[in-house]
């Protein structure tokens, strides 16, 4: 690659990709429904929690690592 825009690095992409991947519920067995947390089955709750982590990480990257170069 010739260059990456601003201070956004490949490691940020890998971090975001990992969180996204962890949010896909591929590692649960079909009968894992209970317990219900906040009106969600456990697997859905974990996926939603991963989405919260994803949003927080992305916001941190945008604010801290996107060079304000105007």
């Amino acid at each position, binding site marked *: 690659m*010739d260059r990456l825009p601003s201070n956004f690095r490949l490691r940020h992409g890998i971090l975001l990709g990992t969180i996204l991947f962890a949010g896909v*519920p591929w590692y649960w067995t079909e009968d*894992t*429904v209970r317990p219900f947390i906040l009106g969600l089955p456990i697997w*859905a709750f974990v996926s939603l929690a991963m989405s919260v982590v994803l949003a927080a990480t*992305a916001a941190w990257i*945008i604010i801290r690592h996107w060079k304000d170069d*105007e």
Partner: protein
Amino acid sequence: MNPVILLLLYLCLLIPLAWLGHRCSTGRTPHDFYIAGGRVGFVVLLATLFATQYSGNTFMAFPGKSYRLGYAFLMSVPFMMAIVLCYLFYAPSLRRVALRFRFVTPCDWIHHRYQSLPLTLTCAGLMTWALLNFLLAQLMAMGHAVSGITEGQISYTTGVLFLAFVVVLYESVGGMRAVAWTDTVQGIMMAVAVIFLGGWMFTGQADLATLPERILAVAPEKIQPPNWKVCATWASSIFIVGVGGSMYPQAIQRIYSAASTRTLKRTLAVMVFLPLVTALFAAIMGWMAIPEFHSLEKIESDKVMTLVLAEIAQLGPLLNFAVLLLLLGALAAIMSTADSVLLSLSSILVQDFYAKTSTRAVPEETLLKYGKITSWLLMAVLLIFALQPKVTLWRLLELKFEVLIQVAPAFVLGFYLRRLTAGTALIGIAAGTSIAMVGFVQETKWFGCHPGTIGCLVNLAICLTMCRRGKRSS
């Protein structure tokens, strides 16, 4: 309150904003009309991006899909977030170059980078296809929303025709300013409605805590963890919506229109959290319908949101008003997306197809005039199709992304790979689009993945491989 009066009050609010947008324009140039002169501040940018990104699909198609798929439609939260994540790969660099060369359309970047008219026109063609599809979906959703709000007093056909007229009127009068300001009003309406009804649901009134038990009793397959195929669709949806959504021409034009990079950064940092409210809310609406309405047909299930809201509205006058507000918010979301798409479409058709192929320099005022005429013509043609809806709204959405996503490798890798040529990018686009089209005609997913995703990965592989070869041979 009579829903028809409330609807008319809302529509009356939009026209002065269009006039104000027209009055505030500083010059009769495409850059001022389509990009608002690059002076959109944080609040308006956030509202317009929010209102543009959350559309008829969110309020009409998402609950329908959520009803059909069950809790697995929680995938809508990360896939809407993925749009903002994908901006990170190109928005910082694009903004720098767009400011320097006063870009108006997304294909201005393609043309600037590759200096190839065939590639520019191919990308513009794919974007036009996707936008036509998207606008058609909004027109259809408008008809359903108006019919729902007025409880059938205004028919689907009348709703589509009347609102299409309002949208094209304020879009062609005020350009990006009118669109952004009306989006702000519409965004606030959507936010108020979602917060109000969301608050009602989450304070326990909707009995959300027992919802999983009720679903488990009638449709256990909709609450169980998804099988590998649905998980593949989940991952594929993140890819296709993330990449495709970040290629929305109207959203790219908002990157150009931000008053400063700081404004854009703050806006995107907030935007990334919004699916936790909007997409989740739409998904819950679909889940709430599962125990209440059994075995709806596919086309019928697109109206699931209306059915759930009708039930809530019967619970009291305050909730009745909240439902009305939400339906109006949904209509606002649809209209705000439609106006942005229409503005973007007319800019692509005139700035890319006409201006870039013209043998002589076309005056900016002429381009602007043609752009406005194009908006009216486009709307007239699409209305013919909107009045005969045959496929579900979700299918229209998928068709849009399958095509739009193929522009991404040329667009994004253009910032990273100096050796990437127009020829290579065209081969990649041809291969990716062909694969997407074959899959679409077959009406199937391959191993749970959207054909557009596989097409885009092939497209990406072609670009990367041929660049590497070029590097070795040189």
